[in-house]
Each structure stands twice: as structure tokens, then as C-alpha cells.
């Protein structure tokens, strides 16, 4: 829409490399533009059966009985599975990556036993000769429910008279287990300084409350799983997942068998954004395969994806901030109540860690509440918890800058978190790019361009998200033609296998095209954690770098052996080995690779890593909107995303993350929500009615990559996948205020809620 004369995508590079920082074509590209890439639903196996899931029509009900006899009698039906086919969970507690969780909750989310906790909750599975027969059979299963009152929001669920979801759930209060049965699974608190003294020193205090709706990650590929429980009791799973080892371990735990009996082959994955970390279909397909002796494939429908997989929590947030007349934030307090859905585990802890993460504030108190409600059990969604929190904080900060009459970026610069700033949850920042992101916004042509016309306004906001390390493994085989075959375990959602291969190529002086990366199954690579937490290019990248260093070390030794010299006297630079004590004899990487077979055998480099020195990422937006005062429709006129990448390994993919995250943030801001009836039935469970942004709704998304190197990565890379979704809703809310003078306190800011706000202002 805006076609000004400016550079739409900028990389503010601080350091140049040969391969890192270039933009090669992805290694899986040809498969993906020709339709050859195999996703989970594309898998065909001999004797394959097709499964379907019976789901609860009630948001909250006790299961009195299940009669599967009519379904089993339908011609073409081969097996039916219910929760009693799974081993009893007892009191076992498991850690599936979100802290300790009772196994019963994990198992009951796969197949409900005594109770259903949300509409769409899985109750039974059927395997049949085709999916149509399986669906017919699902309709023949008779379940007797005792419906219970549903509770749908955190504030309602926290009331003393609220319907209780789990009679065995008692509140964990500030780290102490209480015996109070409640929907509040956990209340925790972060404290820094003296909050009362802080507010007493403030000249201006702004306190506001916010509500955000449940939203879905909205990946285009539905969940799927194909499982063969073989006659030797070994299980093979093919599925769409962000973590093949997570699928292996969780499925083993739910089935009560050793993880070593399961092999998971991750198929190409059609989007995840955090929503493809939980396990839903695999244990059910495994049970059905065991019963039939045949492989069973189950693919969710779009409605099942909305109602039966994990969206991200809706929330109720209070934020209070106090500033001096000189513009220093001296106190900040927040209370965050997040809806976990049917089982505990709302992503409220990271939300509470991020709520004031962009600022250096001496006195802080943050309270977090993990609250179960009768909605789907929630999952991560790109910087989980942080977007909700930033919407609240950055809206309050905007109101403060308005009250003080100061520039929005100058105020933030005056209070920005820096190296050495302590966050209320404990850690002190090492090198971070908050100031650099703000400076890039201040200097951007967009921030300084005039914006004319009625009902138009410009807003800014910033946000933070972590980068986790966890564990990754990598192996590199040297081919005789001097190329490499690289094997790794991080399922590739957005081009990561290429960013990983580029880092190995950089170490060995090769081209990106000389390294062939493959994501393999759980029997073929060392343990590798999920594709999540913005960790893959960072952590699996380090594994690839170290595996390449291992190759280099072995190649140097081989050159020394061939030349009959000490390995210490062999140098490697720019793809060439040089024997310093050997008259500077030279041998290229390719030449040496061709001689491996006759000089001692093949070379395989390997590495397993668990890096601790992670680098979080700051991001910021400048957005121009136009509000139609008659209809409340908001049009995004221009959008600029700025983010610290540390070092952009593949700048096009970093830009892609920034653009994609921004647009998900725009959808969250303006359209997306679970529209629930009072009975807890989602009224908009299709991609027509749950409307994610289309190409027509958007302008180009301009990007600025800032590079403040992460000292914990050899090339300086930071995780960039997530921080970009954090600021958009707040930036848009601030732009709406600038356009029509209303402060929005609820997401989504759709036409009805905007009209209410405009009319309320007119009535004043």
C-alpha cells in the first residue's frame, strides 16, 4: 500500500562471514515447490487402516458409560479404543517439558476417562477400512454423559463458587502445596525492590485491566499420526511434530512401555508455532494398531484442530506503573491470570517473566495464576504468554508517554533494559539488544515519515522473548567428493535445516550447497529437544558447528598421516589443508575427502550439545492504521518490524520469521478469538469464521534486522522465531488510540469492540 522510496528490508550487520549471512536456496526447496515433500498425511503404507476420534459434545461432563458395541458391529470397522485400554496412571507424576504433571492429566487429555473437560475432548478412537466408515462408527458409539456447569474465563473460574474441574487439584500457593481444592493450579510471585516505596516516589501512576481471547496457532496442516505396533512389539510412529523425541517419550509414558520400543519418524511438518509439541493422536493410533495388527493413520479435521488441540491461553491482566516527572519508571506491578484450558499448564510463567522484561525498573511485583477452565487444554504459541503481557504493559506505557507529553521511543530508551539489568524473576541480562532495537526504530524512515489523513494514527511497541538451549545432536559424514551429509533431529518448520547446514559449511570452508542436511528418525540421531523456544538455529546450529570442528580435527590428522608429519603442523584455512613443516604442501578438502578410503577409512564428525549461554531477542514495531469510524474496521496501512537477530544466519529466513510473527500478531490484535457460547461451544471452528489474515488484509511487512552478537554462539546468533509476535497487538492498540482517541483493553480489537469504545467516548 505504501510505496515510498525506501529499503523495505534492512540488515544492520556488524560482522561478515563467507556463508553465514548469505541467502542460499533451501535444500528441501525443490521437493516443496513440486509437491514431492512428504507430510504426515501423505504417507501410504500397505494394509493401512484409517482412524477417527469421538469427541465430547459437552464442555464439562462426567462420563457415566461408553457402549462401543454398535460401532464395532459396523462392517469395515476393525477396532475401537477407549481410555480403559491404556494402563492405569496411578499417582505417577511426569515431566513432559512443562514441569511436573500428574500422568492422569496427560493420559486423560489423550482419551478421557471419568470426565470431559472441554467440548472436543477425545473420548474414543476407531480404526476402519477407510475414514468414512471410521467416522460413521464414531457416530454409533453411545456415551452417557452427566453434563456439568462450564466455566470459561479465568476470573470466573477463580471465584469460590465456581464449578470445579478437577476434584483432586489443589492450589500450589507461592511454592507451597495447599489442600484447597480449586481451579487455580498455581499462584506464584516475582518480587524486586520495595514496591510501596516505588509507587510512593512516583509522580504519575497508571493502572489498567486487560482481557485477551483464546487464539489458535492456526498452522495449515492438521495434526496427523500413523502408527504401526509391529508383531515384535516395537512401535513405529510417523507424524507431524515439533519434537520427535517428545512424541516418543510421551507416547511411551502414556502406553506404559519403555521409550526404546518406539521409533518416531518425523514427517515434513506443515506449521506448528508451539501447537505441535503436545501429543494427541499417537497413543490412540498405537492402541488401534495393537488391536488390529495393522498400521493406523489418524488425521484431524480442521474443526478437531480448533476444538481438540491446544490453542494459547486467554488471559486477564492488571498492570500498574509509576513514573517520576523526569520520565523514570520507578515501580511496576502486574497480576496475570491465564486460562490453562482443561488441564493445568497455562504459559503464565513466561508471561510473568516477560511482562516488564523490556525495562529497567527497581521495584516490581508480578503475580501469576495458572487457572483451569472448560476450554481445550492450551499449548504454546510463539513466545507463549508474552504477547498477552506486552499488550497490557505497552498500552500502559503509551498512556504514560501521552500523560507526560514525551516521545514514545525516547521514553522507552530512557527506561530500556541493558546489560546488567535485573529482571524481577531473578536473572541479570548479559549482552542484549533492547536499546539497539529502539535506536533502529527512532532512525527508521517510517518513524519519521509524515502520516496524514483523518482517523489515521501511528503506534509503537516493543517486546522480549527468550532463547532456550536444551539438547541437540548432529552427525556429519564426509563424502568422497568433498561434500557432507549432515544428520540432525530438529524437525524443520521454516528452513532450519539450511541454516544449520550453513553453519557447518562456514566452519569447513564449503558452500551451503555442499552440505546435504537431513532430519532423521529417533533411532538415527542423538537426543534432540523440540523445535521451540527459538532454539534450533542457535542450539542445533552449535551442534553442527561442533560436529564440523570434529570433522576438521579428523581431517587434519588424516592429512598429517598422509604427509607423515605432526598434526600440530597442519593448518586448515578456507577449505585447504597446509603442511607447515612439509614445505607448505597443500591439499584441498575435496582432494583429501577423495583419499579417505585408502588412508584409514571414512570420517564421521559428531557432536552433542547443551549450551547454556543463550541470547534472548528484543523486537519492536512501528505501525500505521486507519480506523473506519462508521464500522470500526481497522486497516493496517504500513508495518515495520525490527528485531535483534544477534547474527542473521540466513537473513531471508529471519525476515520470514519477523514477517510471519508480525502477521500472526496482527491477526491476534484485530480478528482472532475463540467465540464461545455460554455452554462452552466454539461457534467459529472453521477457517471461514476463525479468520486468520489473508494476503488482501495486509501491506508488505518491512523489516530491520539488528545484530547485537550473542556471546554464547560462535557466530553470534540469537533465537529469532518468537519475539516478533510480542509487540504487534500493543503497537496496533497504540496506533488506534492515535487515530481515534480510544484506549483498547481487550483483544481482539474487532469492529464491535472498537465501535463500543468509540460510542463510549462520544457519550462522554
Amino acid at each position, binding site marked *: 500500500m505504501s510505496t515510498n522510496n525506501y529499503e523495505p528490508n534492512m540488515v544492520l550487520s556488524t560482522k561478515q562471514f563467507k556463508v553465514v549471512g548469505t541467502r542460499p536456496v*533451501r535444500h528441501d526447496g525443490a521437493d516443496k515447490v513440486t509437491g514431492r515433500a512428504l507430510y504426515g*498425511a501423505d504417507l501410504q503404507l500397505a494394509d493401512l487402516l484409517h482412524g477417527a476420534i469421538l469427541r465430547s459434545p459437552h464442555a464439562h461432563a462426567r462420563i457415566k458409560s461408553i457402549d462401543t458395541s454398535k460401532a464395532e458391529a459396523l462392517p469395515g470397522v476393525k477396532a475401537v479404543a477407549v481410555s480403559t485400554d491404556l494402563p492405569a496412571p496411578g499417582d505417577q507424576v511426569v515431566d513432559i517439558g512443562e514441569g511436573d504433571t500428574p500422568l492422569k492429566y496427560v493420559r486423560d487429555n489423550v482419551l478421557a476417562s471419568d470426565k470431559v473437560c472441554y467440548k472436543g475432548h477425545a473420548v474414543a478412537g476407531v480404526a476402519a477400512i477407510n475414514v468414512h466408515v471410521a467416522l460413521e462408527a464414531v457416530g454409533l458409539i453411545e456415551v452417557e454423559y452427566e453434563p456439568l456447569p462450564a466455566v470459561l474465563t479465568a476470573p470466573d473460574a477463580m471465584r469460590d463458587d465456581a464449578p470445579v474441574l478437577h476434584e483432586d487439584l489443589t492450589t500450589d500457593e507461592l511454592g507451597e502445596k495447599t489442600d484447597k481444592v480449586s481451579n487455580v493450579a498455581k499462584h506464584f510471585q516475582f518480587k524486586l525492590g520495595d514496591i510501596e516505596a516505588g509507587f510512593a516516589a512516583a509522580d504519575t501512576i497508571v493502572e489498567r485491566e486487560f482481557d485477551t481471547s483464546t487464539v489458535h496457532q492456526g498452522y495449515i496442516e492438521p495434526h496427523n499420526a500413523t502408527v504401526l505396533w509391529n508383531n515384535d512389539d516395537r512401535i513405529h510412529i510417523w507424524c507431524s511434530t515439533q519434537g520427535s523425541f517428545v512424541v516418543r517419550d510421551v507416547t511411551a509414558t502414556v502406553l506404559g512401555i519403555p521409550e526404546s520400543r518406539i521409533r518416531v519418524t518425523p514427517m515434513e511438518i506443515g506449521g506448528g508455532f508451539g501447537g505441535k509439541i503436545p501429543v494427541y493422536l499417537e497413543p490412540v493410533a498405537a492402541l488401534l494398531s495393537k488391536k488390529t495388527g495393522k498400521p493406523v493413520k489418524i488425521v484431524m479435521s480442521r474443526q478437531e484442530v480448533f476444538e481438540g488441540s491446544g490453542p494459547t491461553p486467554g488471559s486477564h491482566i492488571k498492570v500498574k506503573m509509576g513514573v517520576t516527572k523526569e520520565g523514570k519508571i520507578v515501580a511496576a506491578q502486574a497480576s496475570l491470570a491465564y486460562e490453562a484450558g482443561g488441564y493445568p499448564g497455562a504459559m503464565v510463567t513466561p508471561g510473568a517473566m516477560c511482562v516488564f522484561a523490556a525495562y529497567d525498573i527497581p521495584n516490581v511485583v508480578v503475580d501469576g495464576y495458572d487457572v483451569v477452565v472448560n476450554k481445550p487444554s492450551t499449548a504454546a504459541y510463539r513466545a507463549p504468554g508474552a504477547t498477552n503481557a506486552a499488550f497490557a504493559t505497552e498500552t500502559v506505557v503509551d498512556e504514560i508517554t501521552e500523560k507526560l507529553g514525551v516521545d514514545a521511543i525516547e521514553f522507552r530508551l530512557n527506561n530500556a533494559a541493558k546489560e546488567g539489568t535485573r529482571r524481577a524473576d531473578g536473572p541479570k541480562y548479559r549482552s542484549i539488544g533492547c536499546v539497539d532495537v529502539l535506536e533502529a526504530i527512532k532512525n527508521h524512515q517510517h518513524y519519521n515519515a509524515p502520516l496524514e489523513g483523518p482517523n489515521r494514527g501511528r503506534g509503537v511497541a516493543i517486546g522480549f522473548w527468550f532463547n532456550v538451549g536444551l539438547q541437540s545432536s548432529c552427525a556429519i559424514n564426509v563424502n568422497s567428493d568433498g561434500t557432507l551429509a549432515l544428520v540432525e533431529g530438529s524437525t524443520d518448520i521454516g528452513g532450519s535445516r539450511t541454516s544449520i547446514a550453513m553453519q557447518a559449511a562456514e566452519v569447513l570452508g564449503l558452500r551451503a550447497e555442499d552440505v546435504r542436511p537431513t532430519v532423521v528418525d529417533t533411532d538415527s540421531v542423538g537426543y534432540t529437544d523440540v523445535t521451540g523456544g527459538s532454539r534450533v538455529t542457535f542450539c542445533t546450529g552449535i551442534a553442527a558447528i561442533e560436529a564440523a570442528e570434529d570433522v576438521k580435527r579428523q581431517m587434519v590428522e588424516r592429512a598429517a598421516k598422509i604427509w607423515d608429519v605432526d598434526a600440530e603442523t597442519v593448518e586448515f584455512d578456507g577449505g585447504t589443508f597446509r603442511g607447515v613443516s612439509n614445505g607448505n604442501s597443500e591439499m584441498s578438502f575435496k582432494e583429501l575427502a577423495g583419499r579417505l578410503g585408502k588412508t584409514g577409512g571414512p570420517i564421521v564428525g559428531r557432536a552433542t550439545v547443551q549450551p547454556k549461554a543463550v541470547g534472548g531477542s528484543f523486537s519492536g514495531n512501528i505501525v500505521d492504521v486507519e480506523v473506519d469510524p462508521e464500522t470500526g474496521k481497522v486497516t493496517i496501512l504500513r508495518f515495520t518490524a525490527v528485531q535483534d537477530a544477534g547474527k542473521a544466519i540466513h537473513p531471508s529466513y529471519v525476515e*520470514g520469521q519477523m514477517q510471519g510473527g508480525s502477521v500472526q500478531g496482527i491477526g491476534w490484535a484485530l480478528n482472532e478469538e475463540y467465540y464461545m457460547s455460554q455452554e462452552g461451544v466454539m461457534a467459529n471452528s472453521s477457517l471461514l469464521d476463525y479468520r486468520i489474515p489473508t494476503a488482501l488484509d495486509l501491506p508488505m511487512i518491512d523489516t530491520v534486522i539488528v545484530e547485537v552478537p550473542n556471546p554464547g554462539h560462535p557466530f553470534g546468533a540469537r533465537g529469532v522465531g518468537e519475539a516478533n509476535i510480542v509487540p504487534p497487538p500493543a503497537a496496533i492498540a497504540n496506533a488506534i488510540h492515535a487515530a481515534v482517541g480510544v484506549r483498547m483493553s481487550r483483544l481482539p480489537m474487532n469492529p464491535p469492540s472498537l465501535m463500543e469504545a468509540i460510542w463510549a467516548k462520544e457519550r462522554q
Partner: protein
Amino acid sequence: MQVKTRVETTINGEQVEFLCEPRQSLLECLRDIVGLTGTKEGCNDGNCGACTVMFDGRIVTSCLVLSVEADGREITTIEGVAEGSALHEIQKTFLEGAALQCGVCTPGFIVAAKALLDQELNPSEERIRLWLANNLCRCTGYDKIIRSVQDAAAKMQETNA
């Protein structure tokens, strides 16, 4: 088990015949019977565009076409876009322009974009955005897709000139 119907059709220039149940969609038959799994299912109700194919020269969401309707028709799927080993210009610019991340919407986008550029080689950004508005992508924010279609149009114009 329902009675099956025989369908004779042309897919990517080849004569294809198969048996299907009346309730089966073209999408299901392409994927599960003919074995062309490049056409993807994202919603099965016509709202995401991942299953876009050419049907007698028009773009359709194949999940909303009953397979029996394909009898005597001409269908082009993503597998028919490249000419032999040579990628179509749109496929090339999608790769060079990093217009895909997870790639599951990509076949539908490429088929739809090709249909546009088969008709007009100088579409405006607004025209491309409108044309592709029925194809949902959740990864890219569309920016690099739009630019890649623009790049392909420019290259195809050069070739034609």
C-alpha cells in the same frame, strides 16, 4: 460399502481412470487413489486453499469438487506445474525469494499464482493480493509470496518480450 463410479479424466496431461464412491471429493481421490499427494488438505471446507488445482482452466478448491464431477475434465495439480525437469518460473522465484517456510500451503499458492500469470503478466500488488486471498499461509505473512509472484511476472515478461 458404497457402489463405486468409474471416472475418466485427464490429470497433468495424462489419461487417468479410477473408481470412486460418490461421496469422495476430488481432493481425496487425487491423494488416496491416484497417489498425487502434492495437493494438500488444510480444512476440507474450501476455506484455506491448500488443495487448489486447475479444473478445466479454472482454479478450484478440490475439496469442494466431488470426484465424479471430474469425469471428462482436465485437471492440473502441483505435480503438473514443472515442465519435466525444468521448474516453472514461479517455482524458481518461490525458492529464490524464500516464499515458503513450512511449505504446506505452497502447492496451492503456486497453482493459483500460475493461473493468474497465465492470464496477465503485469498484475498490480493489489491484484495479486486479491487473487491469492483464498489461499491461507500462516508462516510468511505473505510478503515474500507476493514479491515472488511479482518477480516471476517480471521474468516471464522478459522471456515473452
